């Protein structure tokens, strides 16, 4: 079937009464769980799976689940900006500048630009999904261990530059992140590392516990220090909507974020977390005012929030065209399809065109619904800042506890979140910038795994990284970046010396 005929057919399905209703429900639930810290789309889809038996029609069920997934990306920014508490794993970096913006009374602008960026990115990604799904899926399969190694090492290099302030402290945090990710079972050798005999640690730390602990609870502990009765941290609310200048500042960040998110979302294992981190790093690297990052730069909100939305839509590409679930939430949608008796894969378009095009068309509608749903909510969310901190703080604790518990249904995760809270508190006390920590934690295991897998595949031959086209190109970029950075650094030093000499 022709793409346009398919799309028209898809819209005729997505615009049917029940499908519109469930698309809206999915978007609504998605926004809600996005706002609720810890509670993620994967766990929610798992909890709602029995509902799909009742719904009956697979198209309707998948439309709702997809809505939950990309809706969560819209909602995730809310608490990140207002409370420094990542609502979703993919919104961790939004905390850094979003929260600073809120502190300066620009919460409304941050929330507004996040919603607009999400809408643009989501739509861009769905257009990409509509027209280029099959060729891009094949491209994604070309990513083997050597390519992952090159890509993730490049990411780690960006992580080094992420840190504001002291380079020494930034590097220490980076290594701490790598080490924390090593806790548990090493998949390559089957050895157990850094567990000290604990069965709980054998599974390793979950990223959500780190995000909630270091960013959300760490901030609460630090704020509790300040006075006997905790005052409001942010009193100013300011303008609700972003100004024209905000828009001009962030339009390129949104577009870059959309493209980065779209491509990272396609790669299995990439997903929205890495795409948002990557977008933030790139925005900071190529900003004319990198010193503004960490102090409330609007690009630091617009870029990552666009990227995670684009990635959430584009991660449907490997699922729908190859039958490969790239991340936990998509794996749940994969399971839902299988239970309905539909095998995702290259034949999906031919065998179930109604499902394929219906879901894609619903994403256009869902994104528009989410914008309409979220923009008016900005004014309401900002009122959250009026709640006295004495009430807000324990409520945040309650929310994060259940949220973290729901990820794996393990009380152990609550304890590991508290460990990370103590770590985050300590980092704030000693003026460590937490920005490199999540990136190192996510990328570290991928770097290690892919390095060792590549060497096992090549039989210990290190040239495997440069002889393959994609990884070779990435390694070349890596080398160029390092050389460029070093010469830049030396030149600046030399110039510095000259000026002091004269």
């Amino acid at each position, binding site marked *: 079937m022709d793409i346009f005929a398919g799309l028209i057919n898809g819209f005729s399905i997505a615009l049917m009464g029940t499908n519109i209703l469930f698309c809206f429900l999915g978007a609504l639930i998605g926004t809600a769980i996005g706002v609720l810290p810890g509670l993620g789309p994967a766990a929610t889809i798992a909890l709602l799976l029995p509902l799909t038996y009742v719904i009956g029609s697979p198209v309707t069920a998948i439309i709702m689940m997809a809505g939950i997934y990309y809706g969560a990306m819209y909602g995730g920014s809310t608490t990140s900006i207002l409370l420094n508490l990542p609502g979703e794993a993919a919104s961790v970096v939004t905390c850094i500048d979003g929260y600073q913006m809120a502190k300066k009374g620009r919460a409304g602008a941050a929330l507004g630009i996040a919603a607009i960026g999400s809408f643009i990115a989501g739509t861009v990604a769905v257009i990409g999904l509509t027209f280029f799904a099959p060729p891009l899926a094949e491209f994604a399969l070309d990513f083997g261990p050597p390519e992952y190694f090159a890509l993730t090492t490049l990411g780690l290099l960006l992580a080094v530059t992420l840190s504001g302030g002291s380079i020494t402290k930034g590097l220490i945090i980076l290594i701490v992140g790598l080490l924390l990710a*090593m806790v548990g079972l090493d998949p390559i050798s089957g050895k157990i590392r850094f567990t000290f005999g604990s069965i709980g640690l054998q599974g390793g730390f979950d990223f959500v516990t780190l995000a909630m602990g270091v960013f959300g609870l760490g901030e609460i502990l630090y704020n509790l220090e300040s006075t006997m009765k905790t005052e409001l941290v942010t009193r100013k609310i300011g303008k609700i909507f972003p100004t024209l200048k905000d828009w001009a500042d962030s339009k390129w960040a949104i577009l870059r974020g959309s493209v980065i998110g779209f491509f990272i979302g396609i790669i299995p294992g990439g997903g929205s977390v890495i795409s948002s981190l990557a977008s933030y790093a790139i925005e900071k690297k190529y900003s004319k005012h990198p010193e503004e990052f960490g102090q409330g730069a609007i690009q630091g909100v617009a870029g990552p929030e666009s990227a995670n939305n684009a990635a959430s839509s584009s991660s449907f590409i490997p699922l729908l065209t190859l039958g490969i679930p790239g991340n936990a939430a998509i794996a749940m949608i994969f399971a839902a399809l299988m239970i309905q008796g539909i095998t995702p894969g290259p034949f999906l378009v031919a065998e179930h065109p109604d499902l394929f095009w219906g879901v894609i068309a619903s994403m256009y509608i869902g994104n528009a619904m989410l914008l309409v749903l979220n923009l008016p909510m900005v004014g309401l969310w900002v009122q959250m800042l009026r709640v006295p901190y004495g009430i807000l703080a324990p409520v945040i*604790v309650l929310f994060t506890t259940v949220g973290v518990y729901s990820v794996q249904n393990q009380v152990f995760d609550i304890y590991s979140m508290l460990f990370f809270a103590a770590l985050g508190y300590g980092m704030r006390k000693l003026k460590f910038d937490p920005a490199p920590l999540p990136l190192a934690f996510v990328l570290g295991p991928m770097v290690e795994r892919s390095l060792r897998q590549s060497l096992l595949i090549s039989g210990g031959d290190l040239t495997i990284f440069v002889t393959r086209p994609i990884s070779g190109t990435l390694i070349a970029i890596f080398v160029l970046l390092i050389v460029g950075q070093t010469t830049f650094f030396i030149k600046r030093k030399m110039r510095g010396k000259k000026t002091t000499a004269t």
Partner: protein
Amino acid sequence: MKKSERIVAIITSLGGVWIMYYGWHTLKLGSIHIPDAGLLPFLCGVGLAVLGVVWMLILQWAKEPTHEGPVEKRLWHRPLLSLVLMVLYGWAMESVGYITSTLIFVIAWQKIIEREKWLKTMIIALIGTFAMYALFVYLLKVPIPPEFFAR
């Protein structure tokens, strides 16, 4: 401030040395061609050990920062108390169940951390617990640990 930083820097270096030993002795390094589980931890250990020393040197050379503006009074016991409360809450959730532990946790927080009056404490605790239960258990059906009295 400088003193505490110095202590942490020493801990960082010592931790790095221990990780080097752990990676080399317990996990095994393997070779550069086929690395074993210990190689990357070992390298991280080297990094920490070196960075800890660098940090100490920087502290040695850096001038003591002059205080700007009035010094804010900071209390370290409140974060500590709240952390203890949270650990107890996590433990209680499993042993006595969600509702009871949540109710007690909110009451304890309002009394110990915020020093609220009883009436306000009880109102916040009751509304909070009820709202949490309605949202997570009733609406979202999160499988929280079952209540002790209802088991």
